[in-house]
């Protein structure tokens, strides 16, 4: 099995260009690739579109933050496509003051839209959001008399993925509830950078338990200890 390049986090984030759509795994910070996020923050790339479940946690009193919150704080995103922002008052402020274009997407729809892009499908026909603001401007498609919203496939340029283990060909397994959007995002971007807690030799992962097949992964980074 052919190996994928193992690079540093600093090298990896050079693959992200200003204006790129960046998918970041994690759910309220759990399962986010913190080393890549720190490297991206340091590099300073801006005008990004964030595609993520949420904007992670930020406590303005203590300054504590996790997940993508440091990038939100530095206003690196001009657009955020997320399902939830309730735990990050800073993105709410940016939204209310018109600094960041926040596009709220129902969580299951977000997951399927990303998967659809990875699977070569044009979109998703979902009942979710019918009769709500989510429907605004979208096509309604009837199938056997039942209405569904057409939600378009959502592709990204670069995915930042956090795995528990990656083998050197790029096969990945995840850690508990840290799995969440990571395997879906790994399918839906041209460049897929996996930050693995542990990098193992090819053949060390049981082929029955691999969650993300190596074919999706382009680069591997050793996670922070």
């Amino acid at each position, binding site marked *: 099995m052919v190996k994928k390049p193992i690079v540093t986090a600093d090298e990896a984030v050079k693959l992200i260009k200003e204006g790129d759509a960046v998918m970041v795994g994690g759910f309220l910070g*759990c399962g986010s690739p913190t080393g890549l996020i720190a490297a991206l923050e340091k590099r300073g790339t801006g005008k990004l579109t964030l595609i993520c479940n949420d904007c992670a946690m930020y406590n303005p009193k203590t300054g504590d933050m996790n997940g993508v919150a440091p990038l939100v704080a530095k206003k690196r995103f001009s657009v955020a496509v997320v399902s939830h922002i309730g735990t990050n008052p800073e993105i709410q402020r940016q939204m209310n003051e018109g600094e960041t274009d926040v596009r709220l997407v*129902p969580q*299951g*729809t977000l997951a*399927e839209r990303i998967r659809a892009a990875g699977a070569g499908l044009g979109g998703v026909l979902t009942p*979710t959001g019918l009769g709500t*603001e989510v429907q605004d401007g979208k096509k309604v498609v009837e199938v056997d008399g039942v209405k569904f919203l057409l939600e378009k496939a959502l592709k990204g340029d670069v995915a930042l993925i956090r795995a528990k283990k990656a083998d050197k060909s790029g096969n990945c397994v995840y850690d508990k509830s840290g*799995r969440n959007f990571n395997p879906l995002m790994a399918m839906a971007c041209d460049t897929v950078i996996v930050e693995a807690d542990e990098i193992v030799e090819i053949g060390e992962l049981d082929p029955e338990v691999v969650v993300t097949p190596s074919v999706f992964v382009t680069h591997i980074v050793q996670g922070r200890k």
Partner: protein
Amino acid sequence: MEYVANKETIAKRIARFFKNGDVVNLGIGLPTLVGNYVPEGVELILQSENGFMGLGPAPEAGEEDPMLVNAGGMPVTIKAGGCYFDSAMSFAIIRGGHIAATVLGVLEVDQEGNLANYKIPGKMVPGMGGAMDLTVGAKTVFAATQHFDAKGNSKLLRRCKLPLTAAAQVDYVVTDVGLFQVKDGAFVLKEYFKPYTVDYILETTDADIVVDKDCKEVDLA
């Protein structure tokens, strides 16, 4: 009669709906309390939309695992027989009708079964998270809410004014004064909780309420 907000009443009543083995998703906040009042001999299987089944109680202090959290980001545990999955599978389970019930918090709920709980425009916009999928997908949708807001206004409305989380998806509204089934454009009062009365509920709730012919008093103290 004086109204005293009581979350436990709400949680206790909802908990009585469930039978052994039901797979349920409980929203963050008040709905989570439901798990505390499940009757003897009934095991609920809790689905956590961030990616696993078999949600267990919070761990002992010092035993927290940052990689095992609930959909509110709080440390939890997983029971034997639980399993992890990605967000697409999580919402396939939810949207696909494989969840017996969901219990969700309320900003507004109306007699058409509309629910608003994710957005107060210009003021507070946490986002819908998984709530829109849960309302559409769960077999039974419970709206769990105090009967009145902090200003004393009825949370049960004729028509929601806030942006909807879901249109016509709520099956039951459970408050701290009574149990309402949403049916044919009205709240059907099935039970009133001691010490409240039918008259009290009819007087204080600004919505169309039909008193069920089998409506009864229930003591949840």
